[in-house]
């Protein structure tokens, strides 16, 4: 690698006490594809955000073309030719490809009016140069996600991007589209553009990348040219974290509480079978987009299943919605607290009882005293730190919010608990406590499904781990055989 385009040295970043990136180096050559891999929480997003000017590094330096640069805003990154393409695309759906590409720097004619002809011509040239076959006149919202992604890349090229950062671009694509994307990346390379490529799918690294950097817990654990390594090398550097396997007592499993048999939901997952017994914790592992949340939604009745059967305590059921599910003793804690969990600007007390108001009423009236007693007890039990039960829930920290939402689920006295990413955005202390509550619930005989993208979490909590890949069950691993390696292999390799 003779022609170095980007060189980052000693990048360090922490949020409060939490060091998320520590002394990370990164070298990317002109016309090269450089992959960054690592588990969730390894620091990939932070690194991208520093390169994209969203975050400012606490320490370290960045050099472009041998010249030191300071990127203190996304605008600054853009001016230096660094464009980040996120998973959530940022096109204006009602505008055409031409308009999207020129958004923000429209071409004008002498009269100050939009010069449609020139913009159309330039767009056509651009698309041709990248061999993208799209009608540039129709609104991009009517195109497929894959096509929109290409337009976004084309837009980046149109502003003379030198470094293109693709954040998990393949997560939203099916296999054929991935091929097309890789062909496009190949053409970008030939034009001297450097691509930084984030992916969880290890086989993709070997298909497209020239070099790779591995992150773990915020530090660089390896960097190499791809031709010199194999998957073993990657996996061993991504994991290898030592952590105490949990010591909770062996639980007694009871009857099968929840059973899915070849359950399918169009476009989301297929032929998923699983059994959860009373007192058992089943972990659903897999990459983001593997269909795990969708399975939980189907169990909870918010997503219809197209075929297969679901049984609750042996009885075949088809739930019409959350109301039917909660009545049957199923509770669901969503991965997205803000969108599907919190009632912002309502007190913690109301947040904790909304799922089971019937329990706090008699003769159609709320029994506020009974409600207060319950909430007080739960706050103590879950050790929620707060100035009072009537403060708005959004004033609490992430960990305490999560505990309050767990309290909401507990108000239902659930027989089956679906817990999606139980510790997302939660600090370490609260994390450990949440684990204990989950285990405690299982000991009391609740059947629990934990969905988690954190290997460590799944392994620590689960009695059995079901690994999903592309909407199907890829492996069913008993606790004894579970390791980060077995899970990662099942989740990301074909």
């Amino acid at each position, binding site marked *: 690698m003779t022609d170095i385009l980007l060189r980052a040295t000693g990048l360090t970043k922490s*949020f*409060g*006490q*939490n060091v*998320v990136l520590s002394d990370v180096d990164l070298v990317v050559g002109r016309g090269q594809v450089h992959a960054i891999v690592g588990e969730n*929480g390894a*620091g990939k*997003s*932070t690194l991208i955000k520093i390169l994209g000017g969203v975050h400012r590094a606490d320490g370290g330096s960045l050099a472009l073309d041998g010249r030191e640069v300071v990127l203190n805003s996304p605008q600054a990154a853009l001016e230096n030719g660094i464009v980040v393409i996120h998973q959530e695309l940022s096109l204006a759906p009602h505008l055409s490809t031409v308009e999207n590409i020129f958004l923000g720097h429209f071409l004008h004619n002498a009269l100050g009016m939009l010069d449609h002809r020139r913009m159309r011509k330039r767009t056509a040239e651009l698309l041709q140069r990248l061999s993208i076959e799209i009608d540039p006149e129709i609104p991009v919202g009517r195109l497929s996600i894959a096509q929109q992604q290409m337009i976004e890349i084309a837009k980046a090229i149109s502003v003379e991007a030198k470094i293109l950062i693709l954040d998990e671009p393949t997560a939203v694509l099916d296999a054929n589209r991935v091929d097309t994307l890789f062909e496009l990346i190949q053409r970008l390379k030939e034009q001297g553009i450097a691509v930084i490529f984030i992916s969880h799918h290890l086989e993709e690294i070997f298909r497209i990348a020239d070099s790779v950097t591995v992150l773990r817990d915020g530090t660089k654990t390896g960097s190499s040219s791809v031709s010199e390594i194999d998957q073993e090398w990657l996996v061993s550097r991504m994991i290898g974290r030592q952590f105490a396997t949990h010591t909770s007592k062996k639980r007694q499993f009871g009857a099968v509480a929840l059973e899915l048999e070849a359950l399918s939901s169009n476009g989301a997952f297929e032929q998923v079978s699983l059994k959860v017994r009373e007192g058992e914790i089943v972990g659903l592992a897999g990459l983001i987009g593997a269909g795990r949340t969708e399975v939980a939604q189907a169990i*909870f009745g*918010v997503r219809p299943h197209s075929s297969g059967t679901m049984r609750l305590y042996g009885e075949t059921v088809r739930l019409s*919605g*959350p*109301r039917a*599910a*909660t*009545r049957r003793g199923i509770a*669901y804690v*969503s991965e997205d607290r803000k*969108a*599907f*969990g*919190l*009632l*912002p*600007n*309502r007190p913690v007390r*109301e947040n904790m009882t*909304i*799922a*089971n*108001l*019937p329990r706090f*009423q008699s003769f*159609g*009236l*709320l029994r*506020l005293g009974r409600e207060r007693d319950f909430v007080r007890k739960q706050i103590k039990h879950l050790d929620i*730190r*707060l*100035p*009072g039960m009537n*403060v708005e829930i959004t*004033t*609490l*920290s*992430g*960990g*305490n919010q999560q505990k309050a939402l767990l309290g*909401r689920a507990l108000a239902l006295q659930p027989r089956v608990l679906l817990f999606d990413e139980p510790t997302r*955005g*939660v*600090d*370490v*202390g*609260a994390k450990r406590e949440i684990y204990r509550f989950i285990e405690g619930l299982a000991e009391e005989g609740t059947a629990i499904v934990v969905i988690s993208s954190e290997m460590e979490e799944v392994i620590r909590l689960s009695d059995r781990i079901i690994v999903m890949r592309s909407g199907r069950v890829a492996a069913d691993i008993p606790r004894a055989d579970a390791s980060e390696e077995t899970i990662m292999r099942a989740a990301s390799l074909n």
Partner: protein
Amino acid sequence: MSAETSTSSSGRDGLGDTGRRRALALFRRTGILAALIILVIVSSFLNDRFLSVPNLLNVLRQVSIVGILAVGMTFVILTKGIDLSMGSILGVSVVLFAGILDTQSMAVAIPLGILAAMGLGLVNGIGVAYAGIPPFIMTLGMLSFARGLAFIYTGGTPIPILNEAFYDLGNSYTFGVPNPTLILLGTLLVSGFVLTQTPFGRSVYAIGSNEEAARLSGVPVGIYKTIVYVISGGVAGISGLVYASQLSVGTPIAGQAYELDAIAAVVVGGTSLFGGKGSVTGTLIGTLIIGVLANILNMTGVDPFVQQLFKGALIVVAVFIMARSSKT
């Protein structure tokens, strides 16, 4: 990864912080009440007849119709909705009261008029909750539709009301208090009770706060949203009762643009247009602030045209101050 810091210590020992937050919350809750009290004090200096019992009762009587509407509107706005058709539904009920009283007794006319108003509210509710039509559009449509019904029913000419007992309903006093005021207070008490003491009321707040979260918690969102519009329709019918009785005539233009006054009272009263936050007590105070301001401007002989400026400015300034104070 978000910028989460450990909170194990900051929760309990931050007493000073808690105190400040409490003070702010108190200000937020009492801020509008304080504003009303200040307005009353200032008014009493501007005109010595202001604080007289007859004048105060007069204010209470004058705000009744819009006040009742505003109470119903509060339900809708708490769910993050809006009901632009309340004035028109009021109009429908007014002409129905008048028309039915022509041949029937009060015992027939009153329930029928209010039921019709609830029926129109039901249409709004189904449109919003089940057809997924945005509340603004659904009730904008109803605003025109219901007004059309009122005109068709009357043929465009007002129907006089000759029933004595019906006249008394809106014009006489009980225990020295004007009847319309009592009806306002009754509506307010029942509404406040429902909102704070029943699972339905609690769910109304939850729906406005985060509809998806409420749905996932098992709240019957569709049914409750529908009920909310039935309530606002029914309440429009009740205020129509006061209107028809006070004027003793069923005019098809009754209540035109009243919904806007009701919305103003609700937002001045501190209920958030973004849903999930507010109370009917606030709405009452908001109604009174607007009513007292109009009264004192009248008494001091301010040009009615200029009065409009005051009212407009009041709405904007009140909401501006509230938005500021809620940013902790």
